[in-house]
């Protein structure tokens, strides 16, 4: 018998749980039910649940119970403040504490809506992180209708309501995140995808603007890639250095920033603004992280509804959400980058193969032409030939040799990108090269600066050596007696990723500004010797290693080449 009773109890209990569950999944139904329940539980005649509109700093009535509610009365909004006369609910939203009003006639906060109201009880709906989401308010036609007991009962009902609201918000966000995840995987156009991320972030976080900056490694700057409002026209143009402004700070330190307003924050630079500084109610930025490093910054802003409106702050939950969005984006970008590299590599391989075949065919033809030309000049040598004809023969021959030189350069270029990777101690290699060159060119003084710890990279030792040699020889070519070459190898660890950074600087004439863009292009040279594949090959080698190269010197002050290569941990036994 006892068992049967227990079973029945359990069934009742479970069906009750089920009802509760279906109510939770429809928060409106649940809130209405809670309001009705509240009236009954504390013996009130009317009641409201009103919610905070953070944008305007007002309390807005959402649900009403009891008699006499006209549309006009339901549409009342109250400023959230401790100033008198703004309604008891608004005062509770302001303090976050329950409030018992035994008699409205003498209450400074009371705002008359119904003439028969005598006493009121209001409790806050408190969400995660102590944030006031709204207020549950009940009233009575009797004086002194509510005491501590009623306040306790109402508070526990209010906590269920707050939970339902939080859960509903959470579910909305979760749904949006799942949707975004699907979109990220399916959107082929990266720019459309970035736009979409800012759109969703703004919507989910109730933000007025959202901007996305991504790190452009070639210039080492954060570049605006998507934005919604004022900054839209600056996409691709607005940039931050790492560490510059709040956005640069977030990228450099790989940490989020969440503040109310921005005026007064020492990190704030105000270089590119979605809003006027005084209009910003709240600012939040999180790093977009790739697998190994920060690849960008996602930032959102809320605007003040009016100058006197309170700050509408981003919560911890908001930060978590933005982080989740950013990490989904980071993963998507990484996939994209991987595909792009793969594509580039395949592209290079295809071009390399095509170049090799073409060079082979041309080489064969040139060989034949050289032979025919030789026989021709031999046969002509027995005839009286005018000098001009002789000159023509010579220039044809010279042109053929030039074609062969081009073929050779082409071969070098194709070979440069075919790597045999292994751990390489870059410090050792650089030291050795500098030693060799300082012996070979005694008229130039070399200055070498190395980190104490040896720096290792994964690379093709031969190709890396060629690249560095080419840079040094390139410098030497432009230097006079007494000039200097500074070679410096350091490990830089910005944004969590370890890089070997090799700087080769000289005191020569430097690279003219108008040539800076061209020096790494194939077949560009200001030197007499060679066809000018030197720096193009260096760039090819460095990029095939996943590195970057740039020239940052000033015209007239000397050239400065900076190579970065992803560093690895020292090979075993390599420390000694």
């Amino acid at each position: 018998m006892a068992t049967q009773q227990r079973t029945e109890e359990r069934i009742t209990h479970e069906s009750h749980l089920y009802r509760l569950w279906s109510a939770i999944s429809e928060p409106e139904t649940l809130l209405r039910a809670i309001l009705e329940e509240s009236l009954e539980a504390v013996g009130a005649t009317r009641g409201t649940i009103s919610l905070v509109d953070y944008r305007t700093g007002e309390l807005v009535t959402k649900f009403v119970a009891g008699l006499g509610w006209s549309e006009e009365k339901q549409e009342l909004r109250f400023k959230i403040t401790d100033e008198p006369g703004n309604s008891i609910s608004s005062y509770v939203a302001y303090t976050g504490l329950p409030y018992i009003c035994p008699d409205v006639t003498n209450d400074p906060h009371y705002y008359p809506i119904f003439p028969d109201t005598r006493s009121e009880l209001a409790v806050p709906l408190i969400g995660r992180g102590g944030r006031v989401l709204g207020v549950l308010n009940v009233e009575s036609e009797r004086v002194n209708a509510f005491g501590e007991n009623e306040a306790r009962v109402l508070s526990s009902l209010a906590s269920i309501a707050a939970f339902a609201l939080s859960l509903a918000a959470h579910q909305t966000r979760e749904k949006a995140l799942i949707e975004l995840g699907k979109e990220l995987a399916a959107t082929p156009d990266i720019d459309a995808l970035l736009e979409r991320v800012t759109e969703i972030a703004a919507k989910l976080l109730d933000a007025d603007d959202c901007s996305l900056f991504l790190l452009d490694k070639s210039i080492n700057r954060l570049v605006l890639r998507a934005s919604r409002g004022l900054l839209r026209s600056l996409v691709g143009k607005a940039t931050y250095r790492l560490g510059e402004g709040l956005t640069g700070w977030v990228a450099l330190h790989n940490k989020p920033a969440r503040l109310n307003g921005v005026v007064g924050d020492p990190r704030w630079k105000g270089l590119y603004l979605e809003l006027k500084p005084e209009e910003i109610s709240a600012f939040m930025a999180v790093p977009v992280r790739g697998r190994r490093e920060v690849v960008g910054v996602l930032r959102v802003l809320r605007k003040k509804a009016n100058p006197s409106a309170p700050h509408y702050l981003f919560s911890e939950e908001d930060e978590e959400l933005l982080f989740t969005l950013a990490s989904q984006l980071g993963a998507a970008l990484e996939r994209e980058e991987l595909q792009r590299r793969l594509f580039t590599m395949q592209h290079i391989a295809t071009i390399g193969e095509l170049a090799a075949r073409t060079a082979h065919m041309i080489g064969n033809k040139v060989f034949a032409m050289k032979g025919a030309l030789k026989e021709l000049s031999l046969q002509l040598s027995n005839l009286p030939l005018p000098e001009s004809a002789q000159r023509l023969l010579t220039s044809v021959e010279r042109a053929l040799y030039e074609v062969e030189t081009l073929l050779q350069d082409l071969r070098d270029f194709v070979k440069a990108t075919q790597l045999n990777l292994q751990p390489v101690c870059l410090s050792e290699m650089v030291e050795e090269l500098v030693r060799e060159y300082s012996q070979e060119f005694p008229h130039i003084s070399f200055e070498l600066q190395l980190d104490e710890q040896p720096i290792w990279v994964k690379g093709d030792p031969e190709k890396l050596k060629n690249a560095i040699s080419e840079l040094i020889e390139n410098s030497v070519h432009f230097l006079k007696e007494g000039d200097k070459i500074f070679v410096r190898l350091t490990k830089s660890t910005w944004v969590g990723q370890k890089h070997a950074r090799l700087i080769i600087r000289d005191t020569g004439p430097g690279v003219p500004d108008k040539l800076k863009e061209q020096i790494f292009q194939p077949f560009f040279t200001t030197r007499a010797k060679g066809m000018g594949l030197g720096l193009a090959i260096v760039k090819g080698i460095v990029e095939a290693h996943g590195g970057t190269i740039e020239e940052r010197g000033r015209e007239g002050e000397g050239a400065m080449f900076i190579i970065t290569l992803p560093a690895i941990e020292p090979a075993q036994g390599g420390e000694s």
Partner: protein
Amino acid sequence: MGRILVVDDEELAREAIKLRLERDGHQVDTAASEAEAIEKIRTADPPYDVVITDMVMESENSGLEVLKAALLRDVLTEVIILTAYGSVANAVECLKRGAYDYLEKNIPGVDVYDLLALKVERAMEHRAESLGLLKRLQAYQQPAAVQEEARD
């Protein structure tokens, strides 16, 4: 002078080499493909002294096939491999398999035809030396060879 076979699928190249070597007094045959070359080598009587063959013709390894045929016909035939861009690795393989030398067709600023003529000259000398050595060896081993025959 020597009996030489020049193998190249580029007609102009064949003719140019032929002319150059004939000037040095060699007797030069030509073949335009691996197949034609192998046929000519097999039926040549006496065998060629020197075979000059392009590396890449019908296949990447055409030169290697010509080399094999030449050595099969006469193990002392000297083979010189011609390579255009990119086929040096195959040429090295040929050297391992018994080619006398190889020559890159495109060396900027170098008269590769004169270089080829020089290499042919040396190959001829090498072959003459080898033939001389072989004769002496045969003369030395004559009695032993007779005994070997008897045992067979």
